[in-house]
Every structure is written in C-alpha cells, then in structure tokens.
C-alpha cells in the first residue's frame, strides 16, 4: 500500500504540485482554492470525471469519408488521362489543415477543458500507444484514436488495449491491417509486447511469431473508415504463446499478457515516470504494481491512490521533473493568463521543442525528462517564452516570414501572408500578473512572481539576482521592463522544472 500524505503536509506547495502534475498547472488563485479543499477532495475532483466529460464533441471536420470511392475516382481519372495529381494534392492539403486544427482542438481542451486530468491521461496514453499521423496520413483516424484514448483513459487498461488493437490509426501505423493468414506481419505483435504491455525481455521471438498469427483477420473498411473483422483471413490454427496452446486469437493474446506480473510492473513504471519522477525506487514500483493488480487494471482508483500518496509529494518529486513541451506551452500560457498562440505557431513550437502531438518520433513515444532538453530546445524554450510574453514585437521585422519556416523562398506569397497573420501577437497584459503597488518594491515583487512561476522556493542568492535586475532599471518600472523581468525569470533552468 502506498502511504497516504499526512494532512499537515497539505499546503500551497503540495497543492500546486498536484495541479502541476495531474493537470497543467494552476495560477496562484487556483492553487489557493485547491489548497482550501484539502487533499482528499482535491484529488477526488480531479479523478472523478463525469462520463459527459469524456464524450467530447469532435471538431466539425472529423467525419468518416469513403476513402475507397475516393481512390477509385482518382484511379479512374488517371486511367482517362485526367490530372489526378490535383485531386490528391487537395486531399493532402485538407488533411494537413485538419491535423493543424486537431492540434489546436486538443491544446485548447488541455488549456480550458473541464477535466484536465482526463486530458493529461489521454496524453499519457498517446505517448504509450504512440501513433504518428506521418504514416497514418488521415486526421479523422487520428481524432478517432484520440477519442478512444479519452473515453477509456481512466478506465480499464485491458479494455483499452483491445480497443487499440482494433483502432484504424494504430492498425495502419503498425501494419496490423496488412496481417494476413498466409503472411503474418510481426510489427504490431512485437510492439504490443515490447512497448504496450510487458516490456522487452519478457517474451521470445517465437511468441512474436505466434502473436502475429493470432492477430490475423483485423481489417479496415475503407468505405466507412472503421474496423472490420474478416473471419476468412483469420488463422485459427494451433499456436503456442507463452506456454498457452490453442487456436488463440488476438484478445486471448492480450488476456495472457495482462496476467503476466511484468505487465503491471511495466504500466506502474510508466505511470510513475510520467506523473512523479525520473528514477523511481523499485520498491515504489512494486507497491504501485500491486495496487494496479488489486484494482484489476482500473486506472481511476489507481490514480486516486497515487495522487494521495506521500511518495507523490516527496522531496524526490516536488519540482524535480522537466516540463514536457506540451506542458510548457499550456502551463506557461496559463501562468501568463493569456491566450494560446495561433495553431500554426503552436505546431511549430511543438516541433522545435521535440513533441508534436499526433506525431511522436516513433512507436516508443517520447523519452521524456532529460531527453526534452538539448542546447537547441533549451534556447527555443527561452525564446518562445519571450514570444508568448512580448508577442511578435520580439521578432526582428524581417523575421515574420523567416521565424518558423525553413525555406520561405519556396512558399507562395499567399502562404507567407497567412503565416505572417498567424505570427501576429500582442504583448501580454502585464497588469494581470504584476500588481501596481509592487512595481517599485522589487523584493516583494520577485517573491510574488517566484511563487507563480517556480515550483520551488528560490534561494536568497537566486532572488537577489532578479532584484538586482530591477535595481539596475530604477526608476523605470514600466510595462516593458516588467515583461523583460518575466522573460528573464522564464529564461532559467528553474522555469523548466515542474
């Protein structure tokens, strides 16, 4: 059993920690409100998401199309010597725009949605069942997978795995729809074990071959964009998988995997890495794995215990994680009490920081923590904070078209114009963050802002550096100087922590 947090340790810092990790951070007012609720009520509120919250209306374009008919049309046009490339290009452009909108839609839910933990858990599963639009090439399918992840994000893990094995985006990503009786494809079978359930070292190459055969018959209906089971393609022959023999099918394989002690261990470790700390103690993982088994892989009660535990609030965890790029974007925007950047800018920012939603680098998902930080991404974080604070005024005037595009010369003027529009952004309203009466009281102002921006209290020396900056500016206490101060506070390693 994980030890519950002693109530005397519930304070603004621990309340802020809960909001940072189980949601996307809180403003001082939100932290105060959470603190007043007490730990039990605060956790309950985050975890007990209503069924409605998981049923999110899709973006307007997210509807299935008859892809089969579309392809036939293109093929016929080609056969008749017509220009089929144009039609293809139109589809590609549409998919690109829809994907951009899908990213906006999800970031907006993280930022303003009624159930932040649900979105955080959906993000966890997106990294776990990593699937990239680069291969799937269809925004509807990417949305559909996101919806599937959200609906079961806090529910049963075995149910979720089975749904994902029938998820068209995943099936395309890991070639499961090409898995035929005569020619089993091993891609999905391998990753199911290595990355989704038991982890490497807990299966053999023969297990992979047997599992590949068991998952035959999984197809996609391209006329409706839905999963379809094709019984005639199913290999019903005898298979031996991890010591179980029989005419096993895909669900049988998943059931066998879930029963393996390694599975609860694997999920426990991944949850702990995502929500708590980079280098967990094995005994903590053992405890959490026990709880996962005790709760039959139901995520809601597992998370309730996790967020109520003393381990979650330990000194090893408080403010010791590096923000993911998505967390950086959403949390910084929230802390500045401003709006998300335009979809195009947000998408570029995710790319440059190394975490584009719906396009993880590979099926392993994002490595996270230290891997987020390189010299390149660190500079980008600092500069992106500058943009969020000061708007496009921070860019050199010519940079409007150069800023985020590698080769503007190859882009038509219309697109460049659109991009310039997307990059436009006013400076933040600094008065929301800096009270008038503290502008000429550097030390009090720094203390106030530090509490807002940093997960841990700064040392005396650290505070002094910012105070010195304000002193050097005296008597200028104008908005621009205040924004510069905020940018300076965000251009630190401390601001990367959560």
């Amino acid at each position, binding site marked *: 059993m994980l030890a519950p947090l002693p109530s005397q340790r519930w304070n603004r810092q621990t309340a802020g920690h809960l909001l940072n990790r189980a949601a996307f951070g809180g403003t001082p007012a939100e932290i105060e409100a959470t603190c007043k609720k007490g730990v039990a009520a605060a956790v309950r509120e985050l975890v007990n998401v209503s069924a409605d919250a998981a049923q999110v209306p899709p973006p307007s374009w997210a509807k299935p199309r008859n892809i089969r008919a579309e392809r036939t049309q293109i093929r016929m046009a080609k056969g008749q010597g017509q220009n089929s490339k144009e039609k293809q290009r139109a589809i590609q452009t549409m998919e690109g725009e829809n994907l951009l909108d899908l990213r906006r839609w999800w970031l907006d839910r993280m930022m303003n949605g009624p159930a932040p933990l649900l979105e955080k858990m959906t993000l966890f599963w997106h990294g776990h069942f990593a699937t990239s639009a680069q291969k799937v090439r269809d925004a509807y399918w990417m949305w559909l997978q996101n919806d599937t992840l959200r609906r079961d994000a806090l529910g049963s893990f075995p149910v979720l795995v089975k749904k994902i094995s029938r998820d068209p985006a995943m099936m395309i990503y890991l*070639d499961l729809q*090409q898995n035929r009786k*005569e*020619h089993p*494809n*091993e*891609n999905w079978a*391998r990753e199911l074990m*290595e990355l989704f359930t038991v982890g*490497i070292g807990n299966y053999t*190459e023969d297990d992979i071959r047997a599992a590949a055969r068991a998952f035959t018959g999984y197809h996609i209906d391209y006329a409706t964009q839905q999963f379809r089971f094709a019984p005639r393609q199913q290999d019903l022959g005898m298979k031996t998988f991890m010591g179980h023999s029989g005419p096993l099918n895909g669900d049988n394989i998943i059931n066998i995997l879930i029963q393996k002690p390694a599975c609860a261990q694997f999920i426990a470790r991944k949850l702990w890495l995502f929500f708590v700390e*980079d280098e967990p103690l094995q005994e903590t993982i053992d405890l959490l794995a026990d709880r996962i088994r005790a709760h039959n892989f139901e995520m809601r009660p597992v998370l309730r215990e996790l967020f109520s535990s003393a381990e979650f609030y330990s000194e090893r965890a408080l403010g*010791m*994680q*590096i923000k993911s790029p998505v967390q950086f974007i959403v949390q910084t925007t929230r802390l500045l009490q401003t709006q998300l950047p335009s979809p195009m800018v947000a998408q570029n920012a995710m790319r*440059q*920081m*190394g975490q584009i939603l719906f396009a993880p680098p*590979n*099926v*392993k998902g994002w490595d996270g*923590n230290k*891997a987020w*930080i*390189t*010299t*390149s*991404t*660190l*500079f*980008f974080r*600092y*500069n992106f904070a*500058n943009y969020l*604070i*000061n708007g496009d005024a*921070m860019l*050199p005037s010519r940079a409007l078209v150069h800023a985020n595009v*590698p080769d503007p010369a190859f882009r038509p003027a219309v697109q460049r114009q659109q991009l310039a529009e997307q990059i436009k952004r006013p400076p933040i309203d600094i008065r929301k963050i800096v009270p008038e009466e503290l502008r000429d009281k550097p030390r009090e102002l720094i203390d106030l802002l530090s509490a807002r921006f940093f997960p841990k209290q700064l*040392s005396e*020396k*650290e505070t*002094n*550096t910012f*105070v*010195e*900056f304000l*002193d*050097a*500016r005296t008597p200028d206490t104008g908005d*621009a100087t205040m*924004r*510069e101060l905020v*940018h*300076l506070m965000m*251009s*630190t*390693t401390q601001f*990367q*922590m959560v």
Partner: protein
Amino acid sequence: MKTKTTLQTRREFLRTSVLGAAATWTLPVFLEKTFFALDAMAASAATQIVTGKDGTILVVLQLAGGNDGLNTVVPYADDAYHRARPRLALRDEQILKIDNHVGLNPKLTGLKALYDEGHLAIIQGVGYPNPNRSHFRSTEIWQTASDASRNETHGWLGRYFDNCCSGVDPTVGVAIGEEMPQAFVAKNPTGITFSRPEQFRWRASEPGKGHLTAEEHFFRQLNGSDEEITAAANNGASIGVLPGKATSELSTVEFLQRTALNAQLSSDKILAIARKYKSTVAYPQGQFASSLNIIARMIAGGLATRVYYASHGGFDTHAGQINTHTRLIGQFNDAVSAFVADLKQQGNFERVLLMTFSEFGRRVAENANGGTDHGAAAPMFIIGGTVKAGLLGQYPSLVDLDRGDLKFNIDFRSVYGTVLDKWLKARSEVVLGRNFPVLAIV
C-alpha cells in the same frame, strides 16, 4: 571582442547597481570545482589539443528505421537474392556493379563515383552477436556499443568525449536536430544540438543594438556564463571535464544547468560561423542535405568539433518498400554527393571521414506487403578523402541464415574501434572496453 563588450556592460552594471557584487548562484558546486581545477590543468597542459579546427573530423550519419542492406549493396549475382525477393529484387542491368557479385543500388551514382575514385569503403555484413530485432534496443546497442546482453547508459561517442577529449569546449560534438543522440550521452554532458545555426541564440526582449543589453548580461549570469567562464572556455580550458573521480550521474538540475551553460558558450561561435560561411555548392532539398550542409558550413568555419552527427528516418519499410526506399536512398546519395563536393571545394575532404550506420538490415525474404521485416547484418559506408577504398569483408550467405536474417561477419565495434584508433587517434580500448580487430579502412 564579445568579452570586451561584456566587460563594459558589467562595469556599467556595477556602477548603476546598488548590490554591485553579482551573484553567481547558478554556477553550481560541480562547476565551481571544475573551475578551480582549470588553473592546475591549464598549467600542466603541455601538449596542444587536437580540435576540429585543423585535426581530423568524424561525421556519423544514421539511417534510422533499419535500412535494407540487400537493396543498398546488392548481391545481384546471387540467385538466392532473386528467389527471396520476387517483387523487390533490383534488376541486374540497373545495378551499379562493383564486382561480379555485388553492386550498388541504381540511385547510388554519387557513391559509385566515390568508389571509383578511391574514396569509399564498403564494409559488408556488419552486425553483432545475438542480434536484437527491436528498433529501440538495437539502436541502443549501436549507440552505446554494448554487447546485446548488457545495458549501457552512455553512448560510445559520449565515452570518447569523457575519456579522450579533456580540455576542449562543448562544441567537440555537434548533433544536427533537436534530439541528442544516445551515442552522445556522457557522464559529463558535452556536445550540443541545434537544427538551425541562425536561431541558435537567446533573444532579449529588447533586441540589442550592437552591444549587450543589461537583460542579456543578466541572462548570461542566470545561465552560468558570465565573462569569467566564457573567457576560460575560450582560452581552451576545459568545462567539459569534471575533475576528480566523479562517478555519479548528474541530477536533473545539474544536467539542465550544464546544458544551459553549453548552449550559452557555443552560441556566439556558431552564429558567427553561420553568418560568415555559406556553401557555394548547390544542395538538394531534404533533411539529409540540409543537415550535411550545416555540417559543411561549420567545418568551413573552423568550429572545434571533432564529431558531427545527423540522422534521417523513414527506413522502416514493412510495406510498399520499393518507392520509399528508392526515394530515401536517392536523397542520401544526392546529399552525400553535394557534401563531398563542398568539402573538396573547401579543401577539407582529406580531414573528414563520414560513416553511415543503421540499427539493422532487413529480412532476406520480402513479405506479403511488398516490404521487408526487421533483419540483422547490413553493410556500412565509410567515405573520405584519405579513406582506403574497397570492398571489405564477405557478403553474408543468403541461404545460411539466422531466423531468416543475414549472419554478420564483422562486428560493428571493429568499425568504431578502427575509427577511434586510426582516425580520431583515441584509444579505442578505453572507449569500447576491449579491443576489436582493426580494419583496413584508414
């Protein structure tokens, strides 16, 4: 010159500031220690250190996803090749023939030319014992140069930085991209990553007008690089090496601080080079080309880098392989050709060695989807002005297979070891843990 302006700003700051003594609080203890060790080291450093300014340079190019070795270096004369790949086998008449058994993919015209002029070594059948067919695990094995049965955290180039590169600045290793390759992971984070040199800098809220703004001064201080350290680093003293016997891993916080410092220290140099050096050779479009273009510019500008690293993905061709692989191999060929032309024009081709690798080759038999599944042994390319050209090793048998995959003849660590010993003049045994047979490539 930069230091001078900083000093002026600093004096200005001291004059205007009440609390004159600037705090160096972000300079963590481990750096302070390093700092004190610098004097001693500088004093005892009798030999000049080789850097990428005038010494040899290694460029590592990763073909991520598992490049199909059989359709890259093609055993066209082997019937088994055509039998195993009724749809994917390349036709004899298109192959760029090396000898009467193997030839290059028809797209590799530039590499064929390099071979003919004596600047390309093809190492056949490279792999390792007990090959792992997982992308991630096999990539890890290649990146850390570990045995398949062992887990190693630090990369092979990271261990090279740790053990053989004391007394150089963080730009000793440069990875193009946003991600640090595991090969660079070291006890002491050395090496930097960036994707666009022009953007590799911190922007002040109030863009400076030819001098450092006060904000920038504070920024440098906050990120652990005010002028003392910068000056020390520019003098060739080390910030890349911890003194003493530090064996523990850096904490997350220390890791962040070190990275911030590395970024700050290298930014000015890289920006200056990027502004000054442009290639006159035309590079094609695409990621391979843009990465190699940046590397060529950095080499031209005399960055102290000894190891450059670039990666390009998409080689995981489980389905519909022909089109994808042809396109990727073509991009690779065109980019390398432009890079070599650029280096020749600079007069730097003799100092550069480019090495390709992929985490594994692909299965001999094609699958039902016009693709190939994860395999094992595959060829590597070594390109350079002073490389010993030729075809090394044996092409593995296409019928005596290990679970449908080629058996390796040459351990990839033999290639690494040779590059370390003969090219970088580092003791490979220290980096790789033991000695591997040396190959005749340099």
